[in-house]
């Protein structure tokens, strides 16, 4: 009986606690949607598998026609080998800027086949994987740690090739 009365006596207090907790979390969640310092996964614009494969085909076609790969991906568009829309992910605002795909332009045909030529650095969804096209034209979807490994291998190969050619270092 006294326990029931105690609950009745403090029901206002506990209602207040509940409302207070809900209010603060709601304010935090609403505000965090607008802030850059929020910590939930933020989906980003990125090209899809068919787009990156189309870009890769155009790169290799350009190489076949010109003897070397394009300096920038937009060169493929000006050469008429690629639709510009292939360079940008869904949601692109129409303003030409940085393509949504990273291009390792230093890669050459005679480099090892497992070097990265094209890849994405951002994910459109949390369950997505990074898209990669290797130097032999093969396509793969990689987890972040595998992409990091592949990029490190690629940069190490190119960088050391430049070093051995005697092009690096202040004394050269």
């Amino acid at each position, binding site marked *: 009986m006294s326990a029931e009365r105690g609950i009745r006596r403090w029901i206002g207090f506990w209602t207040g606690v509940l409302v207070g907790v809900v209010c603060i979390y709601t304010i935090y969640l609403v505000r965090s949607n607008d802030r850059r310092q929020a910590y939930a996964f933020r989906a980003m614009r990125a090209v899809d598998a068919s787009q990156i494969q189309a870009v890769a085909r155009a790169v290799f076609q350009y190489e076949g026609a010109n003897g070397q790969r394009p300096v920038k991906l937009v060169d493929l568009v000006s050469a008429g080998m690629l639709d510009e829309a292939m360079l940008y992910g869904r949601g692109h605002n129409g303003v030409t800027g940085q393509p949504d795909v990273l291009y390792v332009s230093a890669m050459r045909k005679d480099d090892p086949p497992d070097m990265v030529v094209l890849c994405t650095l951002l994910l459109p969804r949390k369950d997505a994987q990074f898209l990669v096209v290797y130097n032999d034209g093969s396509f793969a979807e990689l987890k*972040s740690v595998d992409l990091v490994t592949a990029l490190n291998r690629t940069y*190490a190969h190119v960088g050391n090739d430049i070093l051995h050619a005697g092009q690096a270092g202040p004394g050269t």
Partner: protein
Amino acid sequence: MPDDRDTQERDGDIPPAETGNPSGLAWPIAKFVMGFVGGGLLAALNVAEFRSHELARQAMCLVNVKGIVTAVAAYANESHEERMPPDLDSLVREEFLESESFVCPASGTVPVSDVPGNPPLAGHCDYVYAGPLSWTAPQGLPMVFELPLNHGQRMANVGCTDGSSRACRDSGEFVASVQRTNDFIRAEREGGR
């Protein structure tokens, strides 16, 4: 034995008009406000703790990137003909950095030191080293970077050729700056052709 009416009045169950007390609802309202403030403070503390943990992870990640950039410069300065290391493994092998420095605290990647057999960094590293680069590289060119996924794609830490490191919070700017590094590497390689 207390009067039942007194008890009810104390509990705030009797409206003011009936008791003749104009502040009959004051105590229940006060209890609600106390609860609201207490609950709100608890929730705010919880949110603040969560945020501070993530900010701490971002800061520790930036320290890692800065450490790698500094170690690259130290490697070049110490009897390597002023050349940058060929890969990140060289920094561990020659004891410029511990293997834990190559793991972003927010990523959940297991550092090499926790793996038996002392394997190479591949698979246990969260940072991309876009080198070795030439020292003629433009100032502010990204040399070490991580994938923004480590921090929920909200930001990515970047270490530059001038020794600086920064948090990049604009995804477009991040991809563009890494592409600039790629363009520089191409120009370097073309020069050696």
